[in-house]
């Protein structure tokens, strides 16, 4: 089942977030988790006989399309993910400017 592959990717991301102490690696884990979620969202709209939901001049009645709504949702979710990642990277850079390290354990101030 391809959906389970997406869930495993999601779980990998969670594992990375729980165990990594490096800020950049945490951001990468967050993205792996999100990619797993996006693939899962797309997968729930798939249909074996379906075609892309775009009307062309050849389109007649009786055609089967894949579910267009999950595709629209995933577009929104991807853009939101980009925004969060950009902000996280900016904060990571400002942490690096302040402590000169990306590793949470090496920072002098108590966390």
């Amino acid at each position, binding site marked *: 089942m391809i959906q389970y592959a997406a869930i495993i990717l999601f779980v990998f991301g969670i594992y990375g977030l729980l165990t990594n102490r490096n800020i950049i690696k945490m951001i990468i884990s*967050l993205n792996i988790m*999100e990619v797993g979620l996006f693939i899962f969202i797309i997968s*729930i709209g798939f249909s074996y006989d379906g075609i892309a939901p775009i009307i062309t001049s050849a389109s007649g009645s009786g055609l089967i399309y894949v579910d267009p709504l999950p595709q629209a*949702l995933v577009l929104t979710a991807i853009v939101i993910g980009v925004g969060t990642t950009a*902000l996280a990277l900016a904060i990571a850079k*400002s942490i690096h400017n302040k402590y000169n390290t990306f590793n*949470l354990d090496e920072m002098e101030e108590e*966390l």
Partner: protein
Amino acid sequence: MSPILLVAVPLLAAFLSILSKKLAPYLLLAVGVFNLVILFFIPLGFEIIGGFNQPLGINLLLDTYSKIALILINVLIIVIAFLNIGKYNKFSSILLLAMGGLNGLVLTNDLFNLFVFLEISGIAAYLITSSNKKPVKTFHYLILGAVGSSLFLFGVVILYSMFGTLNMVDMIQKIQITNNYKELILPFTLMFIGLGVEAKLLPFNSWVKGVLGKSNTLSGPMIGGVYAAAIGFVLGRYINNLFMFEGNLLIVVIALLALGILVGEAMAFSSTKVREILLFSSIAQASIVALLFVNGIVLWAVYYIVAAALSKTVLFLVINKATKEVGSDEISKLKGLFSNNLVVGVAFTLVTLSVMGLPLLVGFVVKLNFLTELAVNNQIWLIILILVASVVEGIYFVRMLVKLWYPEDNVISVKYNLSFKVVFVVIALILLTFGTYTAPLKNYDNTIDTIQEVVDNG
């Protein structure tokens, strides 16, 4: 007048505000006042967007429940923005977006749209906490918030693939037809965790200490007051209408929430820093609110949220202002804070007593009423739990108040502006008024949340 203006106008103002940095703080105040004024002219009911009926398009729902939330959110944002004018001008655009995001969060009747607004207000919150200048803590909050909203989205998507709709009313109707609760455990758990991160529920609240423990006069009241209230309202609506906690899941949820109350109060009891006492007590309050909603006590949970948001705003403003001038928030360093600030001291004391639930104040009325309703529901253990928590709360708050009133040798002087004093006194007076004159509170009942009614009537 359409409720969409409450979201669209702040967003429009935010887009325009980056063109002129100087005008942004005033634009924020103007939009806030505009929102409050039109709120009284908008008729209650559904508002569809784009001209597509539900469930095709997105729609908003304005009922008494969301109206109370909207008034609270907009008033508090105006007050906080006004008090911080000149100090955090860079954050004006972000506060505008936070206002639009929180208004949308409370209004929307669409599950995916809620996720979008959760992200808007979430990113605004991360940026507001960046004013603490503790980037590691902000980063921690961001990661937890992003994971939380991803889990929420996961749950929403699973619900969509099961029922084929994203509209809340439509979803509840379809769930009632199927009525197979076992299948819904997974999506509901994921969504509950997602909302629980923002709502400071145990065990997803490890960000709170870093963020509120280092807060300032902007981030403290915003995150501890406004955001807590808005998320409380959303969580309430979802627990009340959508989530079905039954059997073992119900026991787990109640146990987690009860543990949240106990841990929050115990941590507050053992803390020596004023800000930490306040933040741990808000963790306990968040759990109490969720517990009330789980037991179906809507009205008094709403009043509890409102009272908590008003009190926490005052408490965080007083303490964060003092901390900034003294340089520490240890109780021992703030001894005698109120000996020179009588007005602030009296207001602070009244607010604290209301949080503790002493008679003549709103906190008492709210606590008495929800304990009565819990007794009607035969929830004896929860009553005992909340009473024990109140006693612990009483001990540490009184201990703190005594130290804050009685000076030691070195007198500390913290100057509060007139505008700060006015806000403190007004909020204290509101708590006192509704604590003694309780008739208007009883005008409503648990049906202020109208979704169930709409679902039943089709």
